[in-house]
Structure formats: structure tokens, C-alpha cells
């Protein structure tokens, strides 16, 4: 009992994904477990404005033997990434009592020195049916979901890749080496743009390191942060347009949330080793500061269909739930009763 209490004390939530139309929320933690929440009750109550709270997880799946570092959602699958594996589970099966994966892609372990690479981030391009996996082997692997084959490998980072996002034709990744690489995968294997935020004096924070742990794309805009401060770059001019105010600690999540309720002023969500989550405008003004039950936030999930719901979690057994970008609505435990 003491042991399990202690284990729970050191639980970390790394990733989240929500099914299309926000029927299910899946939350992955460092123990390889995915907690599944049924959002239908909350959905219905939002429509009737009853304001029902999210209950505990409806089930917890032992998904992986290692931490569920990353998750991404497609129309049919909840894809999770862990050490050496990318796994797809059907959304409709998640809710039922099946925890077996629909498919699994193993990463090659060609470099013995690195051990098995972990999948730090996943991105999905619905237009072409591709999944991008930012991995611990310094590369971003691209998988075709039709075939399950690796169609492309994006190489260019000099350390492991922290995050990958895709928007339109562009793919952007950031790494421990402090680089942000923007590709157009159609155009070839070389990155179209290279950014190094730590080289900008306005952003650099050498004592925290140069790593860029999180980035996001929206049209011509790119936001990124990590050891350096959070900055917004304009992709056409590659200029740093805004430096977002942030605390002195490292950043682990940055997100454009323009479509979310309360995000109409350009809402950029910033979170990291802070006990709260900041919402800023494109101009760099903090519009809201939401408290967090985790001292350190690793994952923020924002949905805008059918309604805005933001969930964020990190170094605790709880996630916080918001229905707009202005205040925290409630907190839900990830533990089964």
C-alpha cells in the first residue's frame, strides 16, 4: 500500500488524445498506462448547459511496458508512441473492454549506442494519411497508415527530436539540439527552414539549455519554446516577431488555440515546469493564467469540436479540465477508484 502510494506520487502524465467529435479522451502516463475517459456525458451536458463534470476514467489500459510518451488521434485510431513502438488502437474498441492494439509499428534499433529510441511526439497528416514520429534516434520517421511502412525519414537534428507538428504541407520538428526544422516533405529530404531560437538573445536561457521541447504551426506562424523562451516566428520572413513572457523555468508545451473558445485573440497556450498554464495573445500579452494541479505540465490537449475543452496534466495523478481558455473548470483524478 505504501509502495503503491509512493508509485502514484511519482506518476507523470505525458500525452493525451481525444477521438473525433470528442467522444473519448485518452491519457497516457509514464507507467505505460492509458486512462480512458468517456466524454459523452460531458458533451451532452455542454449542449444543455448543465455543466456536468468529467468523472474518473472509465477504464485504464496497460498499453505499453514503458511510458506512453506521445499520442495522436486519427479518425479511426488512437495512436500512442512509446519506447521503440508506435501502436494504433481503435477508438470504438478503447471504450469497450478491449485493450489489444489494432496495429503496431516497431522502430528499428539500428544504433546500438542509443538503445531503443523512444517516440517523443506524434503528428498526423489527415490529407495524406501520414503519421510523423519524433524519435530518440535524432530522426523523424514518417509512416503511411495504409501500409504501416516507413515511407520517409526526416533527418537533420543533432540530438533527439522532442516534438513534431504538421500543418498544411509543412512539417516542423524541434530537438534537444535546440534546432527547429521546417520541412516540406514533398520537396525533398532537406529541411526548408532551420531555426535556432537559442541563438536569439531575446530567447536564450543558457542555464536551462538550448533544447526546444515544444512547437506549433499555424498558417505562416510558428511558436516554439523549451530551454529558451517562447517565441513566435514568421515563416515567410523567418523573423522572430514576438517573445512571449514566461517564467524562468523550462517550457514543455506551446500551442496555437485560435479556434478554441476564448482563443480568438490568437490564444497561445504555454506550459512547462510551472504550477500554472499561461494563455497569451499573438502580441505577447498574457490573457489568462490557469492553475494546475501538476507542478510541471507536459501535455495540453485542446479540442474545439463540438465544443472547446482543454485538458492538461503532468507530474501528478490528476488532469485539469477547462471548457474555455479563461479558467479551470475542475480537476479529475487519473486513478481508478
Amino acid at each position: 500500500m505504501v509502495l503503491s502510494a509512493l508509485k502514484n506520487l511519482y506518476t507523470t502524465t505525458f500525452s493525451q488524445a481525444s477521438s473525433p467529435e470528442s467522444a473519448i479522451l485518452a491519457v497516457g502516463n509514464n507507467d505505460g498506462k492509458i486512462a480512458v475517459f468517456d466524454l459523452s456525458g460531458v458533451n451532452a451536458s455542454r449542449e444543455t448547459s448543465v455543466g456536468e463534470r468529467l468523472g474518473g476514467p472509465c477504464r485504464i489500459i496497460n498499453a505499453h511496458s514503458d511510458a506512453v510518451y506521445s499520442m495522436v488521434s486519427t479518425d479511426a485510431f488512437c495512436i500512442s508512441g512509446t519506447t521503440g513502438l508506435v501502436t494504433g488502437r481503435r477508438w470504438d474498441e478503447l471504450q469497450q473492454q478491449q485493450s489489444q492494439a489494432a496495429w503496431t509499428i516497431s522502430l528499428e534499433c539500428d544504433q546500438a549506442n542509443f538503445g531503443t529510441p523512444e517516440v517523443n511526439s506524434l503528428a498526423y497528416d489527415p490529407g495524406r494519411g501520414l503519421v510523423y514520429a519524433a524519435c530518440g534516434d535524432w530522426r523523424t520517421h514518417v509512416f503511411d497508415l495504409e501500409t504501416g511502412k516507413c515511407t520517409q525519414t526526416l533527418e537533420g537534428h543533432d540530438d533527439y527530436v522532442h516534438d513534431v507538428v504538421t500543418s498544411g504541407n509543412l512539417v516542423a520538428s524541434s530537438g534537444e539540439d535546440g534546432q527547429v526544422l521546417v520541412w516540406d516533405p514533398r520537396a525533398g529530404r532537406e529541411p526548408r527552414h532551420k531555426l535556432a531560437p537559442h541563438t536569439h538573445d531575446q530567447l536564450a536561457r543558457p542555464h536551462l539549455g538550448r533544447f526546444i521541447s515544444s512547437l506549433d504551426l499555424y498558417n505562416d506562424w510558428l511558436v516554439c519554446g523549451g530551454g529558451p523562451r517562447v517565441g513566435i516566428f514568421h515563416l515567410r520572413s523567418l523573423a522572430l516577431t514576438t517573445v512571449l513572457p514566461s517564467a524562468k523555468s523550462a517550457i514543455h508545451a506551446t500551442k496555437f488555440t485560435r479556434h478554441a473558445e476564448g482563443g480568438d485573440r490568437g490564444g497561445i497556450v504555454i506550459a512547462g515546469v510551472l504550477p500554472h498554464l499561461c494563455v497569451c495573445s499573438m502580441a505577447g500579452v498574457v490573457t489568462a493564467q490557469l492553475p494546475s494541479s501538476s507542478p510541471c505540465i507536459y501535455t495540453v490537449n485542446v479540442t474545439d469540436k463540438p465544443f472547446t475543452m482543454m485538458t492538461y496534466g503532468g507530474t501528478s495523478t490528476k488532469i485539469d479540465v477547462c471548457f474555455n481558455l479563461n479558467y479551470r473548470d475542475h480537476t479529475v483524478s487519473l486513478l481508478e477508484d
Partner: protein
Amino acid sequence: MQQRLKQAVLLEKPRELAKVASSGWFSGFKNRYAFHNVKLCGEAASADEASARAFPPTVKKLIQEEGYTLDQIFNLDETGLYWKCMPTRTYISKNEAHAPGFKAAKDRVTVLLGANASGDLKLKPVLVYHSVNPRALKGYIKSTLGIHFRSSKKGWMTGQIFSDLLVDVFENVFKKYCKKKNIDFKILLILDNAPSHPPTVAELSDNIKVLFLPPNTTSLLQPMDQGVIAAFKAYYLRRTFKKLIEATEEGNDKASVLQFWKKFNMKHAIDIIVEAWVEVSKDCLSGVWRKLLPNLIHDFTGFDASEELPKITENCVSLAKQVSFAEVESADVEELLESHCEDLSTEDLQQLVDSGKIEDAEDEEVQDAKPRELPTSVLSSILREVDTQLQRLEDNDYNAERSRIAVRVRDSREKTAEARQSVDGVTLQLQNLLYEVAHLKKEVRRCLDFQSADQEIDLVPVEQFYVEAPEYISRPADTVEDPHEQRLARLQWELEQRRDQTQLFDKLTQEKEAVAETINEQERKLASLAPRINAILEATRPLQDALDLPIDAKREQQRIVQLLPSPLYTLWVQASAYGEAFDPFIKVEVFGDVDAAKKLIVKEEDTRTENLSESDNDQDQQEENLSRKKRNRKSQKLDAEDLDDGVKQMLGLHPLFVKINVNTKEGNSVVITFYYMQTLRIVTAKCSVHLQEKTKCALTDVISGDTLLNCLVPDDDGQTSPNPANFFQLNRLRINLSDHLSATGRPYKWAQSLSGLSFSSSKQTHVSGEDSQDTSTGAGSSLGDGEMVVWQDSAEQMPHTIQAIRRRLQARLALHAQLVNLETANSTSSIAIPAELLRQHFPGKVCSELKSWRPVTWADYEASSSTQLLREIQVVTPQHLLFMALFDRKHVRLEALVAVSPDHPIKVPVVALSLYWEDHFQTANSPQLRLMEKEVNVHWDELVSSRSDRLHLLPLILYRLAVCLDVYTEAYSAHADARGPDAQFHKEKIFFRPARGPDRAFPFKYHPKLGVFSQR
């Protein structure tokens, strides 16, 4: 007998009334209108003159005996009064006054008149009317009318009304009168025995004696009948005429007369009654008593009704003439006066009732129906009457035929009487004979039932008798034939045998006594043996001591043990049994004040007997309560002294206690002393440790007896009583048990279960396989509410507990050694870890140094924010032994707050970290530090592979921390850019990736085989 013809006059038109002038016309009128005359009969009461003659002397005698004066003798009598009635020949008659009554029945009222013999008190007349509220009296207060108004259905006096009157009205009147006259309040009331005077009136008042006139003597004796009533009525009539005249003075015409008569109503009548009654003179009232009290009415002044009445009658006639009732004659007046006494015919009554109903429908008078009664005395008097009358008939009858019938009747009756006499005689004879028969039958039955005495004696059967009995008794020659002789012989034989047996019995009794004597003798001898044996035992004691034979001591122990309270007894039995069976290193002894224990037992028995005889106790208790109340009154809060006493009593220990010595092979021992708290009904344990070699250091905290046995089972800190009932007992006296632990010892739960005490826990325990306590299977004796001494439990627990105590001692000794070591350590390398373990789990070189190791208090521990989460989830409690370890690597300092469980090493030490490196880092603001803490708190199991390794867990953990600090500093340096060169740490540990995953985890995990570090 009196018969009169009365004429009912009916006139169709009032106008024609004036024309009425002669009877001749009248008869013609009658004929024309087919009028008819109606005969009505009145009957005078038949008077019993004989009784009337006999009565006055009786009255006189009574009056003389009781001493009544004339003032005190009263007579009351009712009379009917047709209040609206004129003499026959007046033309006043109404349309409704037709046959059968010229006097309309509803015009009749009953008037009760009364006065005393002296004529001094004229009672207010009582008027009984057939309706409760006559229309004419509407609006008048009845008490102001000058009369008492009563009503009954018929307009007659009833027994009920009369009784009520007597009680409600007359008694008071009499009383007042007597008071006024200053005479005794005793009244003799003379009444006739009319149905309206029920015999019960005699009992209504003590002061009123009622004397009933003999039947049928009313007309002869009743004073009121002797002229008063007649005078009253005459006055009434005269006054009526006077009124009539007054009313018609001017016109003197018949119309106005009729008009007056029409208006004449009850009210007028009452006025006239009152006036008429006033008019009756005192002389008249007194004079009428002449007949009843001939000797007492001396002052007779010559009132004579016979003189007075005609005068009034004449007066009336003359008055009548004035009102143009020319035809009225004195005879008519007399007739009218007479007619007042007549009874009503059925039709009259019917009419009366109807009109009563009409007059006031709301009137619902219930006339109490008096049950008919015919007492024997009355009956016999009637028969006598018949006899006398028959006699009179015979004497006086001119009709021989008729008198002969009477004679025949009497003759036949005499004959009947004779015949009956003879029948009676015969019946009597028959009765005698029947009785005799019954008597004889009874005698016969008694004879048949008779049994002689010898029949109840059981005799030997005949055959046996002949076999056994000697010849001279059985005499077969005589007895075989003759049953009587045979029986005699058998009886004799029986007697003979019984005599023999009695002698035998006596002899045996004597023998028995002799044997008893010898037994006594031997017992005495045996008793004298005991002291001698004791003496021998005493003598052997030196030998026992010399040979180290504990025979005697054991015996002594056995004796003391009997005095133990039952939980301690259980403990003793189980512990010594366990020791004998398995464990020679356990020694169980009982110590304490034996005398006190004996006294205690005696006292307990006393209280038990006291409880039985509770009657004695009640008084004591009351006194006690009183004194307690007094005490309470004296001071609201308990005196300090009082409280102390209470505390002492509450925490009182049984004078005997059990000591268990648990020795280890190394020669160390734990001595646990078990006490029993009598009031709280729990077992407490004190513990002391005896070590073979004296420890140098003063770190006795870890192995001090006080805390050694804490948490032997989970959550058993011995701070609070396991008996839920104690909470209330202690609360009342505001005792905090934990303040007294040094005196009482600690009430550990395991101590209770060893003693077989089981309490229902406040928490519901989920029965787990290992330590399930199925109390229901244990056969136990009840000790008190909610407590059970369960032997089986105790037996089950004993081996576990002893082992646990041993293990605990061993662990504590090990811990103690480690702590002593750590206390003195000033570098990581000086942490004492077996070399093998060191090689197995850690890389060769460690740069971080353990700087210091010191114990801290709970307050210190609590003050650190790094421990907050651990405290919140209650992984660390105040029971833990708390230490602070400091590690340094150059300018980086790691503070580790280590919490060592009392159950160490079964429960692992828990570490809380904070790091100082330019900034202050805690797990909250440094995910990497959090991972480091996790490394030691969660993944400690990688450090120990066997149970014995566990004993070294604390140093291993500390060593691990030092290694982790190395990794932390090196990994941090690997990716942080712009530190000063002196702030950088050269990478000495082998790891491939300083950071990994989204959380940028550091490679804390060590792979001993590869000698490399990696992330988990």
C-alpha cells in the same frame, strides 16, 4: 255518589249571546241545534273511618315523643283548579268548550297548598301546569309570580316534582322559618299517600319527618281538605267575579264580559290564586287541624268551613248577578267548587296533551314513569279490606242472594284451608320417610365400603407362606381349608418376620457407627501428616537450591498465577507453554504484590455478593450519590486532588504482572513486562533491552525499550487504547493516555491479542490471509462488555509475536550499528556497507560526499516543504525515526530527509530531497530531482536481493543517493551551455544520453554489469 246534570252551552254567534234569557229558549235552542247534555260523574273518595279514628292518637304520641310544636307540623295537599271556569248557568262558554268537558281540560291546573298547624307559615302555592312555558307567562320571570311554577304532562303533581320541591324549595323555607322563629329545624310533614307523594320523600331530608296519612282517610283527616282548599277555591271564584265586574263596569254588556273572558289567561289566574291564598285566614289554617290534632288546637277561635263557605258562595252569587249572570245560583257555585276535585276523562287527557303540544312544541318533558309496586303489606291490607268489606256486605246487605254468595265464598275458602292443612300433614310425613330412606342407604354404603386394617399389609404369597413358615405357625391342617384361619396365620408369620428384620437393622446401624468412628480417626491422622510433609519440603529447599531444581519455585509460581487477572493468566499460560514447547530462550515469570492481589480477589467476591443483596446496597448508593452531589455543588470543576484520585484509579494496574524474557542467541535479551489495567481492561507492556556488550554510543533511542516494540503489527504505536470503551472513560477525566505511558506501559494491540483480549476495532479490518483473526472460532470466557478472552487467538499469535520481537530486536541492533556508523561518517566511502553489496550495486567511484547525518525532530521534518506530499499521503508519520543526510559535490548540496520506519527494515526508509545549486530545487520545480527521489523511494528493491540484505538498506540508500547526485550534476552539465567552467562537472559516469524523453529524464539507473547509467 253524586250525580249532576251539566249543560254544555255552545253558541254559534256571539251576538245571540245577548238574547240568552231563559232556560226555555235555551232548551229550544238546544233542540234546534241537536245539542245534547253530557253527564259527568265525580266520585268521592271512599273513606276509611276506622283508620281515621285510630290515626290521631298515633300522631299525638309521635308529636309528644319528638317534641314538635305546632309551628313545626306542616301539611301539604294538591287540588285541581279549573282556573277558567264559571258556574254552570253563566252563558260564558266558548266555541271550544264543548263536550266532553264543559270545563276545558286544559284550563285545569294543580295547586299545591301547604301551611303549618299554627297557621303561622303559609307556604307559597305551587302551580303545576301541563305546559312548561304557557304563552301567557311569556316574558315573566317565574320566580316573581308569587307562586312556584312547575309543569307536567297532565298538569298534575308527580312524585318527581314533589320530591324536587321538597328538596329545592320547602326545605329551605322550613329552615329559614325555623331560624326566624328560633326553634329547632325539625319538621313533621303530614301527607296523604297520593301517588304524587312517593314514600321516598321520607328520606330526602334528615330534618323533615314525613308522616303519611292512612289510606282513604284524606277526606276525614287531611287538614287542607278540611276547609282550606274549599275556602281557597271560593275565594278564587269570588275574586274572578270581582275582576270580571271591574272589567265590565262601564258597559255591563255581555260582549265586554265575553271579551274579558276571552282575554282571561294564566297570568290573571295566577294573580287571583296568589290573592286568594292570601285571603285564606290564619284561623282557618289552624282550625282545619282540629280533626287530626284534636287535643292540640286549643286556641280554636271558631273557624268553621261550614259557616264560612256558604257565605262566600252567596257572595259569589251576588257578584255573578252583577255581571248579568242572573241564573247563577248558590248550588251552581258549590257544584263548580266541587268539580275542581274531579279526575279527568281519557278524552280530556288526550285533548290536554294535544293542546300542550300546540302551546309549546319545544317542551319535551319526560315524566318519570314510576314502576308499579304492590308490597305485601299493602296486599294483605287489601285482602283484609276485602274481608271486612265482605263482612260488611254480609252484615248490611239487604240482598240475601248477594250475601249468600259472600258466605259461600268464605265457606269454600275455609274448606280449602282445611284440605290444605291435611295435604301439608301428608307432605311432611312423606318428607320424613324419604329422609329416613336416604340415611339408611348411606349406612349401607358405609358398611359395604368398610375395610379392615390388615388388608393394607402386604403378605407373602400363600405358596411361599406354606413353604417358609414353620409348622406351628402355618398349621396347614387348620388353615388350608379355612381362609380366615389362614389369614391369621399369615399375619402372624408376617409379624414374626418383621420382628427379625428390625433386630437386624439395629445391629447394622451399630456397625455403621463403629466404621464412621474409625474413618474419623484416620482422617485426623491424615490431617496431622500435612504439616510434617511441609516441614520435609522446607527441609529440602536448601538441597533444591543447591541442585538448581526449580520444583519449589514452580509450585510457588503456580500458586501466584491463580491470582492473575484472566488476560494475564492467558498470557502466562500461552507464553510458558510456547516456551516449553519450542523456545528454551523464553522465560516467563510472575511478579508483584501477592497479598494485594489476594485482597483484590476477596474484594471482588465481596462486591459480587453485595450485588446479590442489593437492598443493603441501595442505601449506601443513595448516600454516595448525595455526597457526590454535595461535592459537585462545592466546586463545579473537579478538584485537582479528586482528579488525581480519578486518574490514579483509572490508570490503576493490577498488582501482579507477567515478565517475559526473550533471549537471542547472541545473548541479548528483551524483557517485556505485561501489566493489566483493571479499570480500562487492557494489557500494557513495558519493555527493556539488555545487551551483552555495552554500546559505546548514546544512540539508545533506536533500541530503547520505550519504542522498540512500536508498530510490531502495522499502525500499532501503543499510544492509544485499543479498547474503544476507554475513549469515553478517559475523556471524562480528561486523561490523555499517551502522557502516562511511562508509568503504565504501552497498550499495544499485539499485547491484547497475546492476552486473548479482542476488541471490535473502530476500523473494519479486511481479513487478509496472513493475520486473519477468526474470533468466532475461539472458545472464550466473557470478561466484560465487548471483551473476550480467546485462548486460541493467543496461542496463534504467540509464535508470530515472539518471532517478531526477536526480528525487531535484531533489526534494531543492526540499525543501531548503522546509525552509530553514520553518525561518525564524514564521507560516502565511510558508509559501512559490505564490500560485496558495494561492488554489486555501485560504480567504483563516487564523487558526492556524505557530509553529515543527524537525527531531526518531526517539527523539523514537517517544516520542510519537500516532505509535504509524503506527509499528505501518510507514508511518513510521526512514528518514524527521522534523520537528515547532507551530500555535497563541490558547491552543490543535496539535503535528504530520511524517515526510518519503526518497522524497519520491513518498511523501507523514505527519502525527501531538496537540492541547492545556485537555486533551491525541490521535486515540484525540478522533474529531474523528482526522478531521483523516485529512484530511491520506489526502486530500492533493486538494491536488495535477500532478506539479510535488507538490514543494510539504509546505508545502501544513502550510497545510492550519493551516486545519483553524481549523475544529476554530470547530466545537467552536459546540456546546460553557459555555466562557468568551475560550475561544470566533468562527466565521469558512463551514460549515452544525458536526457531522454519529453521530460528530459536523467540516467539515474545503473547497470552494474555494463557499468553504465541509463534512463529508466
